[in-house]
C-alpha cells in the first residue's frame, strides 16, 4: 500500500517540528482482519488515534435475495450469513418462520437443534480463540484450537454432508435424523473436549506474554456495552450477564443446567476467556441433551410443500456464538417473504471498534478487532 499523501495532515508540536499523522490502510486483504474488513487507522507513531472500520466488501444482498425465494429456499442463504456458525442463522430463521406460520416442532428435532447449535458454539469459539492466538503471534495456539474445531466439523460432516454450510435446521424440524451411531460419536467427542479446552487454557491464557498482550486491552465498560447493543461474549466479557438462553429462554434450554460465564474487566482477555468457558458449558448442555433425547419424529407432521404464512410479521432471536442473532420476517401471504431483516450481533459488536481502539497501539488494534470476533458474512450480509 502506498502512503496516501493527500490524506496526511500536518500539525506542529510544541517545539515547532512538523508532525505527521500516518494513515494506515489495514485491509480489506490483511492477515488479521478476519475476512474482508478494511480499517482506516490513524497512527501517531505506533499509537492508534482513530480507527474507522469500512464494511461492505462481502455484501451479497442476502436480505434482498430472500424476497425472491420461497421460505424453504432461504435456509441455504442463511448458511452464508455467519459462515463460522451456520447452524445459528438456520435456527434463528426457522424459529421466525415457525412463529410466522404457527408450526410446532417435534421434541427430538429440538434436541438435535440444541446439540448441533451447542457444538457449533464450540466450533465458532475455537475459531475465535485460535485467531486470538494467531493475532498475537502464537500460531501453534491457532492450530490447537483448530484441531478441537475439526472434531466438531467432522461430526457435522457426518450429520449433514457439509463442513461449513449445513442447511440442517429447517422450518418444522431438521433436515434428517442423526445417522446411526452419530449421537455416540458426539458423546465421545464431547467427553474429550473439556480436557482439550483446559489444555488450551494452560497453553495460552496462562502464558505471561499472552496475558500481557490481552489484559487491559480494549476495555469495554458496562454502560457502553449496553448503550451500543453489544451482545454475546463481547457484552458478557464486560460483566453483562445477558444470554438469551437464560434471559429470554427458548427451545429446550430451561431443561438444562448450565452457567453463563461473565468477565470482570471487559478487556480482550476476559472476552476470550468467556468464549473458552462458554465452550465448556456448551459441552455440559450437550451431555445433558444426549441423556434426555428420545426416539421420535424430526419433522413436524403435515407440513405443506409450499409454505404460505398468513399476512403478518414475526421476529425471533437466539443466542449465537456472537450474540443476539435475530431474524425479522414480514409475510404478505405469498410463498415468498415480503421482507427479511437480520439483526446481526457481529455488526453491532464491530461498531465498538472506533470506541475501543484509540490510545492503544497498532499491535493492540488487531487484538481488539479479534476480540470482537466479527464474521463479515454476517456484518455485510
Amino acid at each position, binding site marked *: *500500500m*502506498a*502512503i496516501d499523501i493527500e490524506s496526511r495532515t500536518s500539525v506542529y508540536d510544541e517545539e515547532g517540528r512538523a508532525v505527521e499523522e*500516518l494513515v494506515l490502510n489495514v485491509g480489506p486483504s490483511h492477515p488479521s482482519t478476519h475476512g474482508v474488513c478494511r480499517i482506516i487507522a490513524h497512527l501517531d507513531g*505506533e499509537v492508534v488515534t482513530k480507527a474507522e472500520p469500512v464494511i461492505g466488501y462481502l455484501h451479497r444482498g442476502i436480505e434482498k435475495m430472500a424476497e425472491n425465494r420461497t421460505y424453504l429456499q432461504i435456509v441455504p442463504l442463511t448458511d452464508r450469513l455467519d459462515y463460522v456458525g451456520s447452524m445459528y442463522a438456520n435456527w434463528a430463521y426457522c424459529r421466525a418462520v415457525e412463529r410466522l406460520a404457527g408450526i410446532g416442532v417435534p421434541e427430538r428435532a429440538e434436541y438435535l437443534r440444541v446439540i448441533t447449535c451447542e457444538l457449533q458454539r464450540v466450533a465458532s469459539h475455537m475459531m475465535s480463540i485460535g485467531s486470538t492466538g494467531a493475532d498475537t*503471534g502464537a500460531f501453534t495456539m491457532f492450530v490447537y484450537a483448530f484441531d478441537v474445531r475439526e472434531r466438531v466439523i467432522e461430526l457435522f460432516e457426518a450429520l449433514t454432508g457439509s463442513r461449513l454450510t449445513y442447511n440442517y435446521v429447517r422450518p418444522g424440524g431438521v433436515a434428517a435424523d442423526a445417522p446411526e451411531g452419530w449421537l455416540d460419536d458426539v458423546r465421545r467427542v464431547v467427553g474429550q473436549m473439556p480436557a482439550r479446552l483446559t489444555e488450551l487454557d494452560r497453553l495460552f491464557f496462562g502464558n505471561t506474554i499472552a496475558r500481557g498482550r490481552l489484559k487491559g486491552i480494549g476495555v469495554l465498560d458496562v454502560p457502553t456495552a449496553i448503550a451500543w447493543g453489544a451482545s454475546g461474549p463481547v457484552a458478557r466479557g464486560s460483566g453483562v450477564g445477558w444470554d438469551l438462553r437464560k434471559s429470554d429462554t427458548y427451545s429446550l434450554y430451561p431443561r438444562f443446567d448450565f452457567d453463563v460465564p461473565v468477565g470482570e474487566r471487559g478487556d480482550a482477555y476476559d472476552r476470550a476467556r468467556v468464549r473458552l468457558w462458554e465452550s465448556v458449558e456448551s459441552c455440559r448442555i450437550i451431555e445433558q441433551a444426549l441423556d434426555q433425547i428420545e426416539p421420535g419424529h424430526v419433522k413436524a407432521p403435515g407440513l405443506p410443500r409450499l409454505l404460505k404464512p398468513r399476512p403478518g410479521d414475526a421476529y425471533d432471536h437466539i443466542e449465537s456464538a456472537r450474540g443476539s442473532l435475530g431474524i425479522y420476517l414480514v409475510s404478505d401471504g405469498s410463498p415468498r417473504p415480503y421482507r427479511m431483516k437480520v439483526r446481526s450481533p457481529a455488526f453491532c459488536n464491530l461498531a465498538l471498534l472506533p470506541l475501543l481502539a484509540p490510545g492503544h497501539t497498532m*499491535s493492540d488494534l*488487531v487484538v481488539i478487532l479479534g476480540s470482537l470476533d466479527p464474521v463479515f458474512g454476517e456484518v455485510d450480509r
Partner: protein
Amino acid sequence: MSGLLWGMLFGLLAGTAIALAALFGVWWERKVAGRIQMRFGPQEAGPAGLLQTLADTIKLVLKEDITPRLADKRLFRVAPLVVFTPVAMSLAVIPFAKGWAPLDTSVGVLFFLAVPSISVLGILLGGWASGNSYATLGGMRGAAQMVSYEVPRTLAVLSVVVLAGTLRPTLLLGRFQWWWLIATFAGFVVYLISSIAEMNRGPFDLAEAESELVAGYFADYSGIRWAVFMMTEYGSVLAASLFGAATFLGGGWPFGGLLGVVALLVKAVLITTLIIWVKWTLPRMRADQLMRLCWTVLTPIALVQLLIVGAVVPWL
C-alpha cells in the same frame, strides 16, 4: 595479498555455509514446528522432505524480482546485502576448535558482538526504501529493538570474557572449566533471549509481525531478495547458536579434536532447536513490553551476573 585471497575464500565458504545452514535450518524448523503443531512437516520432496527447502529456493530464485514503483530503487536493492553481509562476517570469528577459528583475532568476541549490529542499517534501509507504511513501521521497530538488545547481550557475554580473561575466542575456548556452566547460567539465558530479539525471531519478531505488519520491513521484497532476508535470519540463528555453544557451553568440551567439533555442532543444533521451540510456543510481545523486558529485566540480570563473576575472579 594472501590476506585478500583468504578473505575471498572465507567469504565464499561462509556464504555456502550459511546457505547450507539455511537449507537445513528451514527444514529443521518446519519439522520441529510440525511436530509441535501435531503434523508432520515436509515429507514428500527427498528423504524426510529434506529437499523441500531446495525446491523452495529454486522457486524463489526463478521468481520475478519486483521493485515497487514508490521505492527508492537503489537503497531498496542494496538493503538485503547490508543485512546479510555483517551476519556472514560474524561467522568468521567463531572458534570451532581449541586454537582454531577462520579469523583468529584478539578482539574476536567484540567483533562478533559489534559487526552484526550493522544489519540494523539494512533493516532500516529496507523498511524505509520500500515506500510502504507497513515496511517503514517494521523497519523502525526492528531498529529500536536491535539497538536496545545489544546491551544485555554484550553484558551477558562479558561475564564469560571476565572469567576467561581474554577477548580472543580461541583462547576462551581453551580456558573453559566445567563450573562456568553454573556460574554463567543466568548470563546464558540472557544471551539466548537477547539473541532471539537481536535476530528478530518470535516471540520478538515485531519487525516482521505477520499479523500486524504483514511482513514488516521486507513486505515488498520478492524472489531472491526476499530469500536473502530469510537466509540472514537463519544465518543469525546459526551464528548465535554456534557462538553461544562456544562461549557459554564450552565449545567441544568435554571432547577434543574432531569429536570436539562434532560436540560443538550438536550443542549448536540443540540451541537452535530451543530457539525454534520458543518461537512456535509463545505469542509475540508488544513493542513497549519488549523494551520493558530489555531494560528492567534482562539488563539488570546481566549486570548482576557480571557482578557475581567479577567478585569470583580475584579468588581464583
